[in-house]
């Protein structure tokens, strides 16, 4: 066999090995969560809030954490979207290709992306103390928005940068303004990518424990106002796995299963949405 053919075969095997390792890890994680969590996953887990003695093994469920997580990540994603889309459109449609300013903004976003979420949590906590706020849904939403923002903007920025320059010029040639071009053409063309960016950020937000630990707190009730504390699934997993009682630990895995299914659903949903929204996109 020729040397080049050996190279080809070795490269192929290495790639398959890497993929196998990755797929195996995902499979093992899912298997662990399902095997350990499924037995404890009762209807009561999904539909009830913790009752007295829940953390010692008595009745109730984690509805507080499910709803709390959806509130937190939903709110955080909404706030992040409101800020991200203008930033991404500005970077993509208003700055010149080699603009120094855009370079600085992108660098800042990359640095923000790399900051650990516990630092966001501590930062949010400091500000909340300075403002005299207590741990609350609002605090959690704002810190999650901050955590999600760089992910969302950079993901949007990447897809917006893929828009062919000639496509943008097509609208300008008709006499469209830059804003009309950005809102009507660029967003439509990149809609699948924008949806993916939003759901990617949502997935990051709903799975994060450290940023909501101080800022949203934890409670056994479902919050009815923005100023009340809110529970979240990652913290539900953390607290329950930390107890010495096997049945409570098992509920921790059940909570992890719920979280995983939620993230999986969001990720599959984003695929489906992207395929649907891409119908009109120019290739």
């Amino acid at each position, binding site marked *: 066999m020729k040397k080049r053919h050996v190279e080809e075969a070795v490269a192929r095997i290495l790639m398959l090995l890497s993929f196998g390792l990755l797929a195996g890890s995902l499979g093992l994680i899912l298997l662990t969560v399902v095997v350990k969590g499924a037995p404890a996953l009762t209807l009561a887990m999904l539909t009830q809030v913790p009752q007295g003695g829940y953390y010692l093994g008595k009745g109730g469920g984690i509805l507080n954490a499910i709803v709390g997580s959806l509130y937190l990540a939903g709110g955080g994603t909404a706030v992040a979207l409101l800020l991200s889309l203008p930033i991404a459109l500005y970077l993509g449609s208003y700055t*010149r*290709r*080699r603009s120094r300013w855009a370079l600085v903004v992108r660098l800042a976003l990359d640095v923000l992306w790399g900051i650990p979420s516990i630092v966001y949590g501590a930062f949010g906590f400091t500000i909340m103390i300075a403002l005299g706020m207590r741990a609350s849904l609002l605090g959690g939403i704002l810190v999650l928005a901050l955590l999600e923002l760089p992910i969302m903007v950079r993901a949007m920025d990447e897809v917006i940068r893929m828009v*062919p320059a*000639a*496509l943008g*010029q*097509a*609208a*300008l*040639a*008709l*006499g*469209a*303004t830059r804003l*009309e071009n950005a809102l*009507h*053409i660029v967003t*439509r*063309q990149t809609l699948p990518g924008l949806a993916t960016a939003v759901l990617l950020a949502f997935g990051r937000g709903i799975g994060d424990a450290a940023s909501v630990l101080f800022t949203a707190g934890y409670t056994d009730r479902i919050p009815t106002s923005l100023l009340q504390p809110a529970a979240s699934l990652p913290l539900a997993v953390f607290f329950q796995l930390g107890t010495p009682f096997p049945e409570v630990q098992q509920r921790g895995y059940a909570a992890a299963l719920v979280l995983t299914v939620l993230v999986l659903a969001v990720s599959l949903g984003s695929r489906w949405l992207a395929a649907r929204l891409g*119908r*009109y*996109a*120019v*290739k």
Partner: protein
Amino acid sequence: MDAHIQVQELSVAYGANPALKDICLEIPRRQITVIIGPSGCGKTTLLKSFNRFLELIDGVRLCGQVLLDGVDIYGPAMDATEIRKRVGLLAQHPYPLPMSIYDNVAYGLRIHDIGRQDADARVRRCLEIAGLWSEVKDRLRAPATGLSLGQQQRLCLARGLAVEPEVLLGDEPTSALDPLSARHIEQRLLELKQSYTIVLVTHILRQARRLADYVVFMYMGELVEHGPAREVFDHPREELTRDYLAGAI
């Protein structure tokens, strides 16, 4: 000559590289003017100075005047979007907007707020003029990207006509198309010159001969010769023009 566009002492540079040097030119109304010349001679730069597209490029410097009906389009009170509404552009490669066939044509109407009541009729008329109506009338809501390249270019023509321009610019509008689709576009342009001033850039001499009423020959950023097509093609005054027409440069 009834000049629709007058170019006065126009010079353009990309950074330190001059692209157009001191161009003076008049473009006749309701005729097809074809700009010819070897690659890199400034044909497209000249064309894009007519709809203020040059300012979209980094580091462009422009001096001189381009008058549209006697008014400088680079004047301080002029709005680039208004100029681009009056001076349409058919690009080299057709890029439909990411919308349905219908919306591609209706988009211009919407942004300029024209024809609220009779949008359907306007869309139909533009598609008819572009010679596309019979092919798309049963799938107006389908994505424009489903059309063939030739159909897409005719859609771009219809889209440009919808905003009621006075001038149509074409930047090698048939170069991405197969010969049949190219003929189709040429035919439309010949019909359209009854009502529009058309300026085309092409590197296909035979196409220039087929379409041109008026010819502009450029070389290395300079205007070498311009005049009625028959004069320039049959009796070129300049040595360079003769060489180019003979295929020597």
